[in-house]
């Protein structure tokens, strides 16, 4: 862990504030026991079948298609959440209308609502005999028990990330810049696309990545509404549960490690976006 690194420079800068050893030690202990040790066990378990074994699991058609569904649908859902989330964030920050504060509070609902509750609610709404499902069925759209159902659930849980990362930045936009742009003769559309939007891009990307990462791993809300059909609507986390039910611990661990690696990459991407944004725009 961090302390194991032999520093040539002093490990930390001097400070009069006490408690460094205590708090850092406690932090590292908790982190090690609760997060790192179990995750390391997972990696060890998966590596039991070797890299070639993991590759074999990943390229197994059923696993591959589950991963593709999880990542593909999550990508689409994060994209949708980002677009509509951007509109929502803009409307909530820039305009005043009755019920704005209520709408603002509602955005966080998916954070607070347990996923299982969201799952049964969405399933009963979008089933062919549900409130929305019935209307959609009339125009020939099936939602529940298809990949569309997975998509809906992922948009639901991803939305707050998309809205909340962009919102503060919209609030911070200096209106004088917009005024200057307008006074210099730019149309409103030009002002928006050339002046307002570019600085928002890193935040939008961050929100997108967070929504994506959350969607990929989501389980509770999806199993109720997805058809769980191999090659069609079976998501990777469900396949882990199925592998466990088949007593295939190594297989389950391998899928978990693959998902973990991709989540890691996503986290890394977020950090890179933010670093780039710091250089380019001077803030996160």
């Amino acid at each position, binding site marked *: 862990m961090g302390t194991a690194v032999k520093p040539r420079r002093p490990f930390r800068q001097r400070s009069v504030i006490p408690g460094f050893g205590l708090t850092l030690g406690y932090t590292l202990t908790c982190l090690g026991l609760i997060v790192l040790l179990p995750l390391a066990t997972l990696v060890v378990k998966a590596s039991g079948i070797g890299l070639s074994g993991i590759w074999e699991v990943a390229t197994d*058609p*059923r696993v591959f*298609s589950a991963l593709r569904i999880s990542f593909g649908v999550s990508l689409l859902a994060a994209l949708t959440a980002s677009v509509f989330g951007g509109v929502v964030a803009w409307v909530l920050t820039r305009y005043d209308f009755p019920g704005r504060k209520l709408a603002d509070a509602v955005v966080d609902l998916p954070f607070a609502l347990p996923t299982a509750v969201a799952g049964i609610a969405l*399933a009963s709404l979008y*089933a*062919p*005999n*549900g409130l929305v499902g019935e209307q959609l069925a009339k125009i020939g759209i099936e939602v*529940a*028990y298809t990949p569309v159902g997975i998509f809906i659930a992922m948009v639901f849980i991803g939305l707050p990330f998309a809205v909340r990362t962009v919102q503060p930045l919209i609030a911070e936009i200096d209106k004088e810049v917009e005024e200057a742009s307008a006074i210099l003769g730019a149309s409103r559309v030009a002002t928006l696309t050339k002046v307002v939007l570019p600085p928002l891009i890193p935040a939008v990307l961050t929100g997108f990545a967070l929504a994506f990462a959350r969607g990929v791993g989501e389980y509770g809300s999806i*199993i109720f509404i997805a*058809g*769980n*059909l*191999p*090659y*069609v609507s*079976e998501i990777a986390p*469900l396949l882990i*549960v*199925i592998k*466990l*039910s*088949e*007593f*295939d611990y190594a*297989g389950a661990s391998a899928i978990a490690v693959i998902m973990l690696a991709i989540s890691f990459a996503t986290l890394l991407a977020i950090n890179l976006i933010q670093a780039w944004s710091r250089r380019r725009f001077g803030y996160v």
Partner: protein
Amino acid sequence: MFDGNPIKLGAVTQRRAALLGLALAAGLALTGGARAQSEILNVSYDPTRELYRDINAAFSEEWKAKTGETITVRAAHGGSGAQARTVIDGIPADVVTLGIPSDIDAIVKLSKKISPDWRSKLPNDGLPYTSTVVFLVRKGNPKGVKDWADLAKPDVKVITPNPKTSAGGRWNFLAAWGYAYEKDGKDKEKANAFVGQLYKNVPVLDTGARGSTVTFAQRGLGDVLPTWENEAFLVLEEFGKDKFDIVVPPTSIYAEPPVALVDANVDKKGTRKQAEAYLQFLYSDKAQAIFAKHHYRPIKREAAKAEDLALLPEIKLFKIEDIQGSWDEIQKANFDNGGLFDQLSKAGR
């Protein structure tokens, strides 16, 4: 600026400490309370929730009368495979009552917590009751489903659970296969093709029998639900007889949901006496009558009420072991990684 704060915060901290203490006490009470009582755990499969509620109450009553000891029988339900997995991973189950023999074999093989000769330790190979697979269809049977062959017709949508995780799903799969095998001149290739055709008609593959029933009955998906006989009756009772009909196919499978003692756990917990008595109780007249009441097929028909038995129709039942051999072979050929089900879903997509 900070004058008022220390006092307030002190109070907050104290309250938090009190809360924490309360929480810990509650936690101790929760675990401590569970230990003080004579208690056994029955880890069971999905559709037996209502059944074991009655059985457990009856057993507690009898045990109390016989020994004076109060006993609580806890139950855990889920897909049969998932439940076997929890036993392997260390759930303190005293007895398992699962949906298919291969799941108990898996516990034997992977954890050695159950004795390999579990079949011979109880009467009738550890089967206090049996069951079979029948069809549940929408009222009036609009698609005219009468036999297994109708399930593979192109315009019929079939709801069935995932045979990889659900015992009911496995019985459905084996029943369809066995039907085609017997009918088509005992040709395995033809039977495989038939089952492949049938699973092309499956739009939703839930992880447990219960999930499939909810999808079919509550969500209104599909035309036919091949399911445990007891589950079909339960749907009629829960959702109303005016919505669904039961169709009994001329032939179906002899479904064997076995029970077994988890030796390693009862010896450690010191509950062998209670757990063995519980399993023996399943063969008693009282329990046999309860099985029949919940539409399972009791092995002692004379113990059940005539009106309950009357509801269980005569079907020509075949044993899958007679066709495919031992449970090891059945499990491997059909449901293990790369087995028939995997081949079919790969081919079917």
